[in-house]
């Protein structure tokens, strides 16, 4: 049953479908490791289960032989595992080296991690949050850094992962071979919103991607709609658009109410208060909440900032 549970066929079934050529190569290594592990486990477990049955105590007078050693056997069961270990070490190294190979012609995209969302900045200055858009069959290099604590950028379908550090850059390269949307997880504990720090890699045709890159995302939108789209990308890990409290307060009906702060003062939530709470949230902390929010100063355009204020205001009128 054990072997049925985890033979290579089921490993293939459980792994997310590989979406790069390198991921397919990594899968070959994974299958091999699973197969050889199952085989050697069965050998050892089968061995002692067999001995347990075959050599059960028959009477209290049993006199087992004193077998103290056997040099040939001991050499073999040290040397054969050693050879296997060296083989998988070499194979792992080879593929690790390929993962760390950053092609010169790669398309570079900057990635910023912060509690608790991912921002992407493209060479032409275009920004996106939560969705990384890349062309298919073209090498891409992500140049990554963190705005606060350590995060880690993990794309299961590509079989790659890299920690994202504050204060220095790390890089991750891939060439997507399939179009579609692939999940991204943060895999370094970064606080209460860690498990909601998700993103998506959207792989599309080159022409489609170029069109997307050139497009002003806010064209033809009202201010509140612009704010809504910023909110969906950057704020939902901690805030709701209802009155439900999450890590931060729910925003429905918040505008115009009196806010009481940890330091004892109180203030009515007007446009300036909303602006301050987004750009420099630690200035005033509302009672019952922690000082957890990342400051958005410098991360939003004036249009986006005003959009957010208008969006929060609009939440008061909707039911």
């Amino acid at each position: 049953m054990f072997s049925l549970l985890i033979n290579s066929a089921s490993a293939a079934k459980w792994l997310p479908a590989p979406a790069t050529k390198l991921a397919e190569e990594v899968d070959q290594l994974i299958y091999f490791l699973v197969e050889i592990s199952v085989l050697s486990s069965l050998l050892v477990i089968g061995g002692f289960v067999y001995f347990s049955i075959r050599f059960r105590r028959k009477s209290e007078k049993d006199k087992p032989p004193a077998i103290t050693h056997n040099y040939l056997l001991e050499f073999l069961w040290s040397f054969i595992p050693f050879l296997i270990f060296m083989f998988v070490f070499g194979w792992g190294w080879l593929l690790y080296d390929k993962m760390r190979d950053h092609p010169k012609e790669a398309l570079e995209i900057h990635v910023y991690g912060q509690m608790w969302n991912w921002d992407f900045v493209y060479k032409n200055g275009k920004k996106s949050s939560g969705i990384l858009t890349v062309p298919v069959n073209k090498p891409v290099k992500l140049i990554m850094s963190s705005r606060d604590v350590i995060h880690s950028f993990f794309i299961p379908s590509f079989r790659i992962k890299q920690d994202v550090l504050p204060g220095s850059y790390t890089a991750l390269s891939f060439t997507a071979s399939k179009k579609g949307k692939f999940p991204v997880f943060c895999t370094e504990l970064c606080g209460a919103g860690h498990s909601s720090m998700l993103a998506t890699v959207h792989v599309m045709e080159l022409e489609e991607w170029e069109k997307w890159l050139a497009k002003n995302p806010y064209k033809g939108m009202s201010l509140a709609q612009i704010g809504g789209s910023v909110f969906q990308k950057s704020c939902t890990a901690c805030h709701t658009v209802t009155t439900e409290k999450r890590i931060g307060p729910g925003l429905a009906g918040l505008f115009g109410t009196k806010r009481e702060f940890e330091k004892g003062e109180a203030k009515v939530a007007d446009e300036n208060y909303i602006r301050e709470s987004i750009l420099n949230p630690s200035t005033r902390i509302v009672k019952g909440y922690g000082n957890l929010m990342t400051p958005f100063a410098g991360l939003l355009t004036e249009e986006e900032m005003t959009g957010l204020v208008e969006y929060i205001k609009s939440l008061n009128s909707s039911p």
Partner: protein
Amino acid sequence: MSEGKNYLNEKKGLSSWLFTLDHKRIGILYMITVFTFFLLGGVFALLMRLELFKPGENLISAALYNQFMTFHGAIMVFMVIIPGIPAFLGNFFLPLQIGAKDVAFPRINLLSWYCLIVGAAVALCSLFFNGVDTGWTFYTPYSIRTDNGTLWVVLGAFIMGFSSILTGLNFIVTVHKLRAKGMGFFQMPLFVWSLYSTAIIQVLATPVLAITLLLLSAERLMGIGIFDPKLGGDPVLFQHFFWFYSHPAVYIMILPAMGIISELITTFSRKTIFGYKAIAFSSVGIAAVSFFVWGHHMFVSGQSEWVGILFSFITMLVGVPTAIKVFNWVATMYKGSIKFDAPMLYANGFLFLFVIGGVTGIMLATLAFDVHVHDTYFVVAHFHYVMVGGTLMAITGGLYYWLPKMFGRMYNEFWARISFAFIFIGFNVTFFPQFILGFMGMPRRYHDYTPVYEPLNQLSTAGSWMIGVGFVIVFFVVLQALLKGEKANSNPWGAVTLEWQTDSPPPHENFHEAPMITKGPYDYN
């Protein structure tokens, strides 16, 4: 038979326990302490699994979940598994197995227990300061920013470290100086060898943890700028310091367990150990190499590619002595006279689970494989197979094995076997699905997950209840044995190591006459 005076009835009253210098009584103090913390850490684990039964927030918030996870890890590592075997079973049986009256420094031995108690109390103070949510690894810079509770746990771990150092120091001197007449190093039981190797790690590695935790405290309190990138520090440096201790610490947790398994397998096979020297030297070998593998926790941390390759290579080397031990245990059973009392069931459970823990360890040491499953449930499954499937199985097996010696009473064999069935099956139901979750890419330390991971998480949660039931049965089996157990004779298993040649329970200074050694430790002929 245990007539007359023994270490249990020799003196009475609470103060005769709290100020005792008898290594056996100190061992019992550790036993009570470790069991209490195990219960606490276990409750946190069950609550976490309950929260993970369904996606979304069900029982506790994400912030609270992170605290539960941190407490589960910190309690189980610092207060259960590290002191579990050396300070509890080791304290009790190391002097007995080498024919000594006590450890070399009885007062330091008692001091080490107080270090653990004070450290644990300080760590638990964090509960009054918004708790701690960094995970037991305290990675910077998150641990610099988060709530004040962190400081208390870090300080507590610092103090508990001294408990570990003092126990290790005591064991090294005891092994060198207090062996019975005629006992050379190669006449020592293998449990003693494993404790000796462990003690070397405890003495050499724990101070590095102490320094690291002090630096972290200084960073939080004074902003000295070693780890905080805002002040020009390097957050990854913390990981190097931390794992320089914490990887050897993994062997503090598993080596003594391996020692117990050597004892159990020889006793219940009535046969001398196969490859005594190979097992003894592989313990020392593992201890030595364990200092040079810490970087395998950091393959995706941003350390240089060459460093990663070097650490992968050295980690593969640890696999060799580990494999040697497993093969030797299996070979010892060949042509033995095997009896499946509960301790032997646990020893076989250990072998089964440790083999899986071991091969998945080699998989993780393989660079390109690790990149995919690093910080996913695959890693969680792997280290639970080693720490729980390995160490806890060995502690429980060792507890049943030595219970007659410690308290002069037999446990109920039927219920002891039932406890094994629950723990062994429950363990596999809990943790095997987590290997698959890791392949699927589910990250560890997640309070919430996407619905594709739901069925396997539910299986895992159901398994955790079985483990819980199993340990409750263990608790009652021990309780029943203490209160109403049949009287045990001095050697109920027909074992040959020295502790079985004195009364059950042993008298105050262990042996009525100083033992003389003329045979090897496992000579059944």
